[in-house]
């Protein structure tokens, strides 16, 4: 059904067809801003309401792991951009190479996130499971710390879920690219998955300071 560079009936030119696909992808990403926006808003309101507990809870996250993950994700954005470039200039052999690199970096990110989640499990910092913020924390402190970690897991979890979807899309692109489907005239799928991947990177660029950094100095 989805053939390489075929012009569909509702479009007049391939350029118009491609511009429509790009526009559609950006509209989807605009809805994603609002999707994540609600969580950022909830975080802001609650952080303002319970600044001290949120600061203490934020400091239990690992700054080195968070920073390494940020660098890994940015590197994966570079390799994704290079995959798009390879398709645009018709370097067919480079496309799968850069897609695999992106896949590896994305997997490293998810693996490190898994280590962090496991640390939280060991520390009894997962809301819903037996939760104890610090030995002897008051009921109120525990409740507010639980709120922080609910938001932490909600936000990073939704982000990680997007990463998993991205990994799936990369595997699909990899199969297509190995069949030689992408050319300078037809590379819309790579370009749109690239836009999605970079968007997910941007979400992390904001999660990183908000969850790991802003209370570190206290």
């Amino acid at each position: 059904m989805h053939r390489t560079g075929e012009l569909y009936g509702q479009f007049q030119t391939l350029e118009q067809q491609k511009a429509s696909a790009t526009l559609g992808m950006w509209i989807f990403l605009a809805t994603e801003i609002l999707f994540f926006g609600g969580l950022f808003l909830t975080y802001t309101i609650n952080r303002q309401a319970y600044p001290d507990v949120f600061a203490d809870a934020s400091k239990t996250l690992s700054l080195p792991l968070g920073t390494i993950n940020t660098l890994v994700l940015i590197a994966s954005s570079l390799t994704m951009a290079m995959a798009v470039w390879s398709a645009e200039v018709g370097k067919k052999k480079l496309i799968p190479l850069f897609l695999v690199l992106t896949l590896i970096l994305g997997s490293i990110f998810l693996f490190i996130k898994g280590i962090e989640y496991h640390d939280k499990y060991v520390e009894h910092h997962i809301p819903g499971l037996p939760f104890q913020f610090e030995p002897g924390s008051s009921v109120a402190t525990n409740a507010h710390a639980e709120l922080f970690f609910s938001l932490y897991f909600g936000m990073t979890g939704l982000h990680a879920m997007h990463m998993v979807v991205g990994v799936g899309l990369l595997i699909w692109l990899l199969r297509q690219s190995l069949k030689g489907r992408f050319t300078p005239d037809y590379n819309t799928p790579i370009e749109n998955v690239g836009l999605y991947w970079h968007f997910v990177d941007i979400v992390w660029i904001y999660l990183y300071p908000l969850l790991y950094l802003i209370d570190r100095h206290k």
Partner: protein
Amino acid sequence: MSEHAEHVVSPKIYLLIFAALMVLTVTTAWAATVDLNAYFMGLNIIVALVIATCKASLVVLFFMHAYYSAKRTKLIIICGVFWLAIMLFLTMGDYATRSWEVH
């Protein structure tokens, strides 16, 4: 239809943006360990968010090609950010002025 002519961004620019993103990440991690609030209340948050916004802008403009893209694409991006701003500012304005409420 000239606006549809595809602009291929060179790997040189990608590497430059990547280097800038790396430097900004290390800078923000370092700045977070310094008590900037001693100079100006809330400066730690401001610095962290300004650096994050610089990084996000670099990604949108160059990795996502927004700098070279059609005006209608830019319009969609601005709409998305604008609606997010409405949601954040009006809601926080509401919360900030609820003086009768004790948290």
